């Protein structure tokens, strides 16, 4: 790793020196829509090169260094038709090029910079990708990142654990089969591998890309079921401030026999951000506080967070520094009250109340990260980037019986070279290293290291786009012997419609994914459901082969566009909790590699714009899972609903807009540890209504989530959110 750092540091001046040899040209201008409004976050770049940038909140962009001569510059943004323009650049001079984008609700997500791994411009990925833009986050008036991602087709959250096409299931936060990247930096916890969705304020988010299917060939462990890449706002030129205030209240239980308090529960938050930037550098600081009474007994949550970001730009190099820190104190409604566990009022279960023995349970949690990234565009054909990061999570679970604590670190280092030998090909190679440690009374004191090298080539052959890559990961726990995992991948896209733009496309891919056991999974020693949980240091990495074939249609009758994909995953050595019977009468829980599993299904979405002001989306995922145990017993995987449906509609009229979202998930057929928990569970049917109105720099948003106050649970004995009404005001300067 030290060698890599030295190489990267050496490359930095080389890049700068290379740029100084010939005076560079600079392109600047604005991107607006046909009504003259600035288009934020539009990608401006030169196809087939390493040169691209994004517009700021005023629609301004600055693209440099560019070579002198004639160039084609392409601009793309979500919800607009992409456009291109030929410009002539003069060495040592700047050129202005303004763009006007035509709104197009059916336009495909541009996917121009899906991740920092393979920046692709104008080409679509060979795997399914869903994108949640800032505009969608705004209009949905959500307060956390997981709430924003939850609305995407094929995605489901189970009590904070994300599932992409049924990848993770639910294992009480002890792992995640989805990798979270924040600006390309891995952010899964070092000890438990889970995701802290409240690490960043939703105000920090510019977009969220969801890569579905195994992504380990580029991203390594945890990218078993997919990757969530969160892109934070860039720092625009000038002074910008933003204040966001939210207030709301929770609905009461729909049946008096379930009521548990006299006054409605309240929630509120305040967030502030300020930034200053110029062409060379910029900085932003933000902070916020959130309080919630919760929607059930013992459900208070207090959250405080700060974040900062800085950038420094020279002609061809950009350095980004970012960090965030958040503290939480939240009550833990561990499970609902079953008969005789509380004042149950004659009910077999009281979903809004907790077991008396769990009264007072709470968690104090702190987490933070710092990250540094550098990217140097040595030439239009060559760029390199490097990053270093440190994520720390610290929790203390306060329980009546005993308290537990854990401190986890994740140190990461990586470097990548990006080459574009010609306009039809891009090659990336890189190395990564991760060192994780944990100090905990339930996980023990341990370290885990991962070293990896990867490469991927994307080549356009006639109208085909072929991508092939592989990654090798070496894993070691507590300095022990190395375990090697190889993850190859092959992808193909074929246009099925040769229109100049927005034609249909067929895609197919096959790849291998894996996930290393987390230290929590290997070494956890605690008590759950009244049973001893014992460690299993011999856990092996999970692995899977994923196949996908999909098609995106061209616009049909000018009204709609359909995307559908068939997916198939064959997984081995899945890590799931199992009960151990120890003679004569002891039962224990242990995480074991016991499952050979199959997940297959259909993922489809439809986007329609029947009227200029009306847009609708429908997404449907059919999931068929099966697991094969050593004793040849089989059945569906736990916590995987067979049907998942999302539907949304938005109507805009001037400065006002209204919308609705509906989510349905069928009742899960199987749960873990059945017989030890209340097996009661129902389907999810949630309707959200929302409206917004803007006046000058202020926008008001009203959100009524779960407006029907449908009472449901997705995991045993854990009530999902009830009707919640929130009003948000955002002032932007």
């Amino acid at each position, binding site marked *: 790793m030290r060698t890599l750092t030295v190489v990267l540091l050496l490359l930095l001046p080389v890049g700068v020196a290379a740029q100084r040899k010939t005076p560079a040209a600079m392109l600047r201008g604005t991107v607006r829509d046909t009504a003259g409004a600035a288009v934020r976050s539009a990608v401006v770049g030169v196809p087939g090169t390493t040169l691209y940038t994004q517009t700021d909140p005023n629609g301004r962009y600055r693209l440099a260094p560019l070579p002198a001569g004639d160039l084609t510059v392409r601009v793309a943004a979500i919800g607009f038709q992409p456009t291109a323009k030929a410009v002539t650049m003069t060495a040592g001079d700047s050129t202005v090029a303004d763009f006007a984008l035509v709104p197009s609700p059916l336009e495909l997500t541009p996917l121009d910079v899906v991740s920092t791994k393979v920046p692709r411009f104008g080409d679509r990925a060979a795997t399914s990708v869903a994108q949640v833009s800032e505009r969608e986050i705004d209009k949905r008036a959500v307060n956390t990142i997981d709430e924003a991602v939850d609305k995407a087709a094929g995605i489901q959250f189970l009590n904070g654990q994300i599932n992409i096409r049924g990848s993770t299931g639910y294992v009480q936060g002890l792992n995640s089969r989805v990798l979270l990247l924040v600006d390309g930096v891995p952010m899964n916890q070092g000890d438990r591998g889970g995701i802290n969705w409240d690490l960043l304020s939703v105000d920090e988010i510019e977009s969220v890309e969801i890569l579905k299917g195994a992504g380990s060939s580029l991203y390594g462990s945890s990218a078993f079921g997919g990757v969530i890449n969160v892109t934070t706002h860039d720092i625009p030129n000038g002074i910008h401030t933003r204040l966001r205030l939210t207030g709301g209240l929770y609905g009461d239980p729909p*049946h008096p*026999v*379930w009521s548990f308090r006299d006054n409605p529960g309240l929630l509120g938050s305040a967030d502030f951000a300020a930034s200053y930037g110029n062409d060379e550098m910029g900085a932003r600081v933000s902070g916020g506080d959130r309080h919630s009474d919760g929607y059930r007994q013992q459900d208070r949550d207090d959250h405080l967070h700060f974040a900062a970001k800085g950038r420094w730009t020279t002609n061809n190099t950009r350095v980004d520094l970012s960090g965030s820190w958040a503290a939480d104190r939240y009550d833990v409604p561990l499970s609902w009250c079953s008969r*005789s566990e*509380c*004042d*149950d*009022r*004659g*009910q*077999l*279960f009281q*979903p809004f109340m907790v077991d008396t023995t769990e009264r007072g349970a709470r968690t104090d949690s702190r987490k933070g990260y710092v990250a540094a990234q550098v990217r140097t565009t040595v030439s239009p054909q060559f760029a390199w980037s490097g990053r270093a990061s440190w994520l720390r999570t610290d929790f203390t679970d306060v329980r009546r019986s005993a308290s537990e604590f854990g401190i986890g670190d994740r140190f990461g280092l990586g470097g990548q070279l990006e080459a574009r030998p010609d306009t039809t090909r891009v090659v990336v190679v890189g190395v990564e290293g991760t060192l994780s440690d944990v100090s905990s009374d339930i996980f023990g004191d341990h370290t885990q290291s991962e070293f990896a090298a990867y490469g991927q080539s994307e080549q356009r052959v006639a109208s085909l786009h072929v991508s092939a890559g592989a990654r090798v990961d070496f894993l070691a726990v507590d300095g022990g012997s190395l375990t090697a995992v190889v993850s190859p991948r092959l992808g193909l896209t074929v246009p099925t419609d040769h229109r100049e733009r927005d034609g249909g496309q067929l895609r197919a891919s096959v790849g291998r994914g894996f996930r290393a056991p987390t230290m929590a999974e290997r070494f956890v020693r605690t008590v759950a459901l009244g049973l001893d949980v014992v460690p299993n240091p011999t856990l092996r990495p999970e692995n899977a082969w994923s196949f996908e074939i999909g098609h995106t249609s061209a616009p049909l009758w000018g009204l709609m566009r359909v995307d559908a994909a068939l997916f198939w995953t064959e997984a081995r050595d899945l890590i799931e909790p199992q009960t151990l019977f120890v003679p004569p009468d002891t039962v224990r829980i242990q995480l074991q590699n016991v499952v050979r599993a199959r997940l297959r299904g259909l993922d489809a979405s439809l986007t*329609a714009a*029947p*009227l200029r002001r*009306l847009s*609708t989306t*429908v997404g449907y995922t059919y999931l068929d899972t099966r697991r094969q145990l050593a004793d040849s017993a089989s059945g569906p995987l736990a916590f995987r609903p067979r049907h998942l*449906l999302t*539907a949304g*509609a938005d*109507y805009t009229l001037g400065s006002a807009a209204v919308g*609705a979202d*509906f989510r*349905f998930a069928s009742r899960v057929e199987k749960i873990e540890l059945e017989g030890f928990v209340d097996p*009661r569970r*129902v*389907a999810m*049917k949630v*309707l959200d209504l929302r409206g917004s109105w803007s006046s000058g720099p202020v926008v008001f948003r009203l959100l009524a989530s779960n407006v*029907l106050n*449908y*009472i*449901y*649970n997705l995991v045993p004995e854990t*009530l999902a959110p009830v009707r919640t009404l929130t009003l948000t005001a955002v002032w932007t300067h």
Partner: protein
Amino acid sequence: MRLPLAGFILLVALVGCGGGLEPEPICAPGLVGVCGTLHFRGAIPPQTDNVFVAAYVTFPRTCNDLIANRQPFFPGSVPYTDSVAAYSVGLLPGRYEWVVAVWKKVGTLTATAADTALLRVAGYYRNPGDTSQAGVVAVANGAAAGNIDIVIDFDKLRPATDFVTCGP
């Protein structure tokens, strides 16, 4: 615009209605008798043995009636440590003039009028139209009479003699 909006509403209507978690029915499945909730107030007396619910076809007049005409003759205890408890009591179809919750002190019952020394009237079902009066309950053939709710105040337990005449 009508078509997609109608489609959206239809979609919500098709899959979005009903089916969520519901409270468990108070009445036991297949019950023929009375059922409802007991609302407890006051401090539980230290000598408490149990609390049960009984019913009388006609309002009892004597301590003997209290014991001999009680239905069921051997009533089961109901939970009394929570603020509210559900109860179900199996009865023969008919009309009942008094449904009463009884507190029992620690001690052995003899199924005679002497038992009233160990028993107290804790509360009874009241006429919804005139809460100063006992409510009459009709148990139909093969059915349960629900919502027969009773308030029990442990601080205001009343001896049998407040309601009936007990001989020497």
